[in-house]
């Protein structure tokens, strides 16, 4: 009995945890407990009472119904006065209401995500906490809890492959494997609380937030108008959405032929762009291989590596320009990439030939050594005879 009394003395405000210890553990890990947000803030009731009946009386509401949760959280999180000290935004509730999740919830669908599904209920952690399900890198996994659930997604006609596709994409690799701080997670394109798929006309804008120069060149191209007229999503038509591959890989496929007949002038432009790109890539890869070979010899290859980086930069510059579909504009960039890589190859090749010549020289050298020794031995014998 004494420990109950003790607990009551230490925390006169909230003794709920006396009977709900598991929730206490969860709550103490959360940002809320640090800010003095107690059980009654969400659950109501009389937090100071140890009497079960009295404690669960008054405005006690038990476990909040799913449809009530967004509004309940918003009672603080949409309040500018309450959020100001934390410098947190107050538009989450408004955004949620226009999100795919929010609209379905309003229609009475209780399977959609509410605040607690992503943030947790008692154990709400800050999005900057790496343990939080809303931490940058953890977001794909968190969304995937529902969006990779084939059974659940079937009801909405949505693909449950998105998480796997994203993991394999350049974006997924950059985010999850390379820990690239600039790599996007789901929320970067779909929005955070206002999560919904970008509309057809918005795809270029969404992608263009990061790929600004690619968007610039795209908008000057004939594709822009044609795609808008045909009602095609701009970037995604060629690049796909979740399973985006590395830059340039689309051209290698038959993506142009999906709209343009093979051999037609537009398909020809695609073919030429592919030729320019793959020639540059090929030269860079060959140079890379030669550098590795030269390093084994050993030759010093520090400079060559730096110069090959320059070639890669030129190629990187060429990718956005390719969206203009203007071969004349792309050629100088891919050509520079190619010529730098070719120069590097030539110079290393000279050095490698030099090494081979050294071996050949060694054979000649030993011939002279043996000749010299023979002469010396001969002279020694001659002296002795005289």
């Amino acid at each position, binding site marked *: 009995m004494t420990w109950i009394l003790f607990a009551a003395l230490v925390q006169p405000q909230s003794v709920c945890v006396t009977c709900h210890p598991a929730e206490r553990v969860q709550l103490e890990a959360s940002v809320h407990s640090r800010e003095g947000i107690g059980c009654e803030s969400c659950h109501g009731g009389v937090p100071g009472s140890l009497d079960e009946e009295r404690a669960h009386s008054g405005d006690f509401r038990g476990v909040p119904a799913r449809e009530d949760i967004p509004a309940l959280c918003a009672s603080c999180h949409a309040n500018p006065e309450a959020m100001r000290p934390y410098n947190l935004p107050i538009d989450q509730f408004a955004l949620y209401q226009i999100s795919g999740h929010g609209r379905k919830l309003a229609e009475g669908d209780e399977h959609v995500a509410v605040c607690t599904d992503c943030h947790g209920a008692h154990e709400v952690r800050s999005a900057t906490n790496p343990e939080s399900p809303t931490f940058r890198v953890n977001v794909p996994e968190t969304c995937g809890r529902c969006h990779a659930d084939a059974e659940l997604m079937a009801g909405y006609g949505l693909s449950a492959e998105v998480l796997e596709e994203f993991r394999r994409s350049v974006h997924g690799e950059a985010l999850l494997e390379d820990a690239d701080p600039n790599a996007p997670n789901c929320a970067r394109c779909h929005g955070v609380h206002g999560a919904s798929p970008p509309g057809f006309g918005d795809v270029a804008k969404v992608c263009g937030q990061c790929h600004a120069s690619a968007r610039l060149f795209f908008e000057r191209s004939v594709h822009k108008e044609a795609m808008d007229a045909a009602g095609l999503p701009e970037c995604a038509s060629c690049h796909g959405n979740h399973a985006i591959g590395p830059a340039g890989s689309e051209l290698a496929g038959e993506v142009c032929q999906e709209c343009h007949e093979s051999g037609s002038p537009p398909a020809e432009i695609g073919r030429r762009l592919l030729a320019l790109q793959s020639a540059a890539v090929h030269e860079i890869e060959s140079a890379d291989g030669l550098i590795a070979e030269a390093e084994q010899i050993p030759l010093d290859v520090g400079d060559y590596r730096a110069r090959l980086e320059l070639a890669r930069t030129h190629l990187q510059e060429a990718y956005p320009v390719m969206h203009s579909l203007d071969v004349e504009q792309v050629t100088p960039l891919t050509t520079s990439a190619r010529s730098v890589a070719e120069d590097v190859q030539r110079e290393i090749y000279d050095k490698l030939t030099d090494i081979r010549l050294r071996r050949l020289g*060694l054979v000649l050298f030993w011939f002279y*050594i043996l000749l010299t020794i023979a002469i010396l031995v001969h002279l*020694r014998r001659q002296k002795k005879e005289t």
Partner: protein
Amino acid sequence: MKPDQEAAARKRALLDWFETRVNLTEFFALLTSLGLFYVEVDTKKPLRPAIREALAKPVASYAEWPRVLGPLAVLFFLFQVVSGVLLAFYYRASPSEAYESIRFILRDVNFGWLIHQTHRWGGQLLVAILILRMVRFFFEGVYKKPRELLWISGALLLLVAMHVDLTGRLLTWNQVSYWSTVRGSELIFTLPLIGPLLGFLVGGQEMGAATLSRFYILHILILPGATFVLLYLNFATVRRVGLTEAASPTNVGGRRQYRDYLYNLAILIVLIVGVLITLAVMQPVPFYPEIDLLSTPVEAQPAWYLVAPHVLVDVLLGGLPDLLKGTLFLVSVLLLVLWPFVDRSPGKTIRERATVVAFGTAALLLWLLLTIYGVALQGIGAP
């Protein structure tokens, strides 16, 4: 007079001009002091008769084949001096320039790679020859009275050659040489008395600009100077007491003359150059990356002759405190140098000194096994 007679007369006149002003024979005698030409030269005579007389003498028994390790060491030392001077034309001993200057030598200087590689290999072979020489001295008992000095100078010569190599390794100032030196010096600096003293001499216990420039001075001036003095001492005592009883100055019954010996020496020089250049082309020392102070390689890369002590001290006796390890190391070095005073038994044949020979064989085998263990199983050891 015929033209060739005229030329000969002119040469003689030039020689006479010098001969009347300095004693040229003394200069020639200096060459014999370095073990290249083991013969007493009468410095009172003029150069030409002195040489003629020396060449006609029978070769001392201690200079006959296969007693070739001594002159071989001298030839390697001279080769190192010549190639080292060539490298010094381009090398710059400062942390910001050292690596770059080595790269310049290796890549841009004509035949710079050849000089660099032969210098590296020459150093290794010099150490190897001196080790072999000490092994031979040990088993032949070439440290018994009166040849203590021969052993001691030989052992010191070996230690100095190792230090020339170790200081030279740091000069390349790359990731491997830098961290190997740091690892090696950590042990040395724990030694009582010697540690702080060495730290003071090489400019502090941190490897930096001061260390590099002091290692450079040690490498090109002080240690080669010491080598020269030790070589002189070594061969001076060989000339006085010979190598063994059978190969002593009093036993000169050989039929060869020094004239032949000179030809043999020339053949040896040609062979050395051939071997060094072959090694430089076929087995070049790797070009390691620049120093990265933020990443310490996991494995130390001690020089090949230090792999055995490294394995012993670091792997097998890893638990001992550094001070004890350092002391163990120091004691074994002292044991090597002062060996003539440890084993003072008069016996000279192998049968008479069975215990000592057994001890030596065991030590040598341990050294070989530990080296093989380190190189093959632990993957440590830098060429």
